[in-house]
């Protein structure tokens, strides 16, 4: 190849990359899913499991890359500044997209995104150690009121969902000022402290029940859990809105300004991928609760969550 043809072909490549993507041709090159956490974490594995099915539904290639730091905000901040081509999507969780931008000075906000679809959502629950005499949320409240300052609740870090769940419970019950918060660096050390009895309360999704001996006290959902029908919902025990429902959800986001037809195509492919047999069995294996919303429904849900989580952030003092 001589220099002229090389330059010519580079120029063609350059223009093809810069030209606005047309939906019928999309995708012309591999689509990149950005995971805002390190490789090997729960989110990473979910997205890596999802990528092949999305690729199949799109009829193109999909690859996953990781950019970690700042509880996911580094990746979101980087993607918010990218050209909205639809070739780079982020998988953001509830904390990355709705909580972090309200507690930290990050270069993105509610209007930085074109939500594509939600993939997973699980309600959170409040847990205590099994065998410590506390069996119900009423007993927990009574114990805390009897001995203010004695009990500790843990979290995987300030501002994490594990933190906000417990804040929602005890703020809703009016005893938040009588219990102390002990943050850890990640769930692992917090669970170890739970097993050792250093902390007495921890909030997480249902999956935690399989990781240790815990008693579930309350679920932050609009309905009781199928697997734990005896656990009351937050509303039932008198926790008022907006603290009564908390979901750990995640979905695909594109930078704001992505062409509508590309968003529609991605959203549709995402739906097909979530519904695919392969991904359904993957979700069953990893005990992921799937919850697909298309672009329009997800946009409305995302905005409602963004506003709704403000109250709980204030309660947590963040």
């Amino acid at each position, binding site marked *: 190849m001589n220099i002229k043809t090389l330059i010519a072909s580079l120029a063609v490549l350059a223009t093809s990359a810069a030209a606005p993507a047309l939906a019928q041709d999309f995708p012309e090159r591999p689509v990149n899913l950005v995971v805002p956490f390190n490789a090997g974490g729960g989110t990473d594995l979910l997205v890596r499991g999802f990528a092949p099915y999305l690729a199949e539904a799109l009829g193109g290639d999909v690859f996953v890359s990781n950019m970690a730091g*700042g509880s996911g905000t580094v990746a979101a901040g980087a993607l918010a500044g990218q050209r909205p081509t639809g070739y780079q999507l982020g998988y953001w969780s509830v904390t990355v997209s709705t909580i972090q931008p309200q507690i930290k000075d990050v270069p993105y906000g509610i209007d930085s995104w074109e939500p594509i679809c939600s993939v997973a959502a699980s309600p959170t629950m409040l847990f205590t150690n099994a065998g410590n005499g506390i069996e119900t949320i009423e007993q927990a409240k009574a114990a805390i009121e009897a001995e203010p300052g004695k009990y500790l609740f843990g979290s995987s870090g300030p501002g994490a969902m594990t933190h906000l769940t417990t804040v929602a419970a005890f703020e809703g019950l009016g005893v938040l000022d009588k219990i102390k918060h002990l943050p850890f660096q990640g769930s692992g050390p917090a669970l170890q402290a739970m097993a050792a009895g250093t902390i007495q309360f921890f909030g997480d999704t249902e999956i935690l029940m399989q990781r240790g001996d815990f008693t579930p006290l309350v679920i932050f959902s609009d309905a009781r859990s199928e697997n734990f029908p005896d656990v009351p919902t937050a509303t039932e025990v008198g926790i008022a809105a907006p603290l009564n429902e908390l979901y750990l959800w995640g979905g695909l986001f594109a930078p704001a300004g992505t062409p509508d037809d590309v968003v529609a195509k991605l959203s549709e492919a995402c739906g097909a991928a979530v519904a695919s047999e392969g991904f359904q069995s993957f979700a069953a294996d990893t005990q992921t609760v799937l919850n697909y919303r298309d672009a329009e429904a997800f946009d409305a849900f995302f905005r409602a969550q963004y506003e709704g989580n403000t109250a709980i952030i204030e309660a947590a003092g963040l």
Partner: protein
Amino acid sequence: MIELLPQAAGLIFTLEGLLVLVLGTMLGIILGALPGIGSTVAVAMILPFTLGMSQAPAILLLLAVYAGSVYGGSISAILINTPGTPQSAATCLDGYPMAQRGEAGLALGWSTIASTIGGLTSAVVLLLAAPQLAALALNFGPIETFALILLGLTCIVSVSEGSLIKGLVAGSIGLFLGCVGGDPITGEARFTFGQFQLISGFNLLAVVIGVFALSEVLIRAAAKEEGTQSLVSFSGIVLPPLSAWRGRIKGLMKSVAIGNGIGILPGTGAATAAFISYAEAQRSSPNRAKFGKGEPDGLIASESANNAVTGGALVPTMALGIPGDAITAVMLATLTLHGVTPGIRLMTDNPVLIAAIFSGFFVINLMLLPMGMLVAKGAAPLLRLREGYMLVLIVLLCAVGVYFVRGNPFDLLVMGGAGILGFVLRRQGMPMPPLVIGMVLGPTLEISLRQGLIITDGSFAAFFTGHPIALVLAILAVGMLALPLITALRARRSGTA
């Protein structure tokens, strides 16, 4: 656990299983030996390949890469004074001086044998007593962790070759670097000076690679000679003769015990173990006067301890479902993918799988020696490259490695800045291992101290009254600090008398 071994062997000794063990160990050693690519990155790189495998081979592949990379890190530490990972930072202290006097092959021989023994014993401990040890580890709360980290920090004294004061300055710089970013208790930003990127702090690996590898490149560029010679002379691993082990066995055993013990405790890790073990060897070894000048005892101490951690770290991971570090967290996540829920019932629900993992781990450690020799043989021609080529190669690989740690562009700049900082500090004779110790231990020290104070309602005295383990560790720490002073005073007194 023992009685399940025959069944477990059925899972390991299949074509897929053996292939995975051999290739995984080899790949791990290569990745670990490349400057800049540490264990975490190595394991993350392999992860996508495990998705299509069945349960046991998938985990065994990750384990092989993990154990291989921890050992592999010592190769670059010895040959080019560049620890691939923080855990082999202590290996540079004696490994590189040996390489400089032309004993690179022998230094690798010592480190290989020490790594193998460290890994093997930890595999045995794992097989015999994982559940009991895990229960023991639960007694380690924030206050005990604080005392242990305090003990770890006293190692700064023993790794400050040349000047203790300069070592302490480097240590405090490291401690400070660990403070930058979001506060672990309140989440508020500290020392970020309005830079959004700094909210997650300085990445440890980016700083380590910067102050060791990049600054080494700059120091060589600043040296008088033209970079046309090769770095060290090396043609392959030379195993030390059996007689040379005389007088070193006791130190080895002690280091292995330290590595196993610290590995079990969640959140401390291989770097801490290697440094504590090195400090202890420097205190008690019969050859302590030669430490820092290329003494095999120093190599043995750090390499046997950091490989013993690999087994220890699996104890809480497998027995409680609680990951001890980033790498074991990846392993647990992989188990989840294969339909196994990590948790307190992991061992009771999947006894054969766990037995296969543990015994596979034993086999992996047996393979470190032959695979290490093979890789070293293959790497030898590379080291005969002229220095200039080697230096450029190091910069490129470091950039790749740091980029893959978390794909964060800012980390690359941090590495560049740390390289220049390291160059300036090293020019005035400041040792770099204390800086790494400070940065590794600082965040854990801070969070455990503040957690402890929250638990005790702000009383520091209560740290030691109700916590005997913490008290013992704190006394050890004070002893480690006082000892050099006492010996110095005694030496002076007997000198004047």
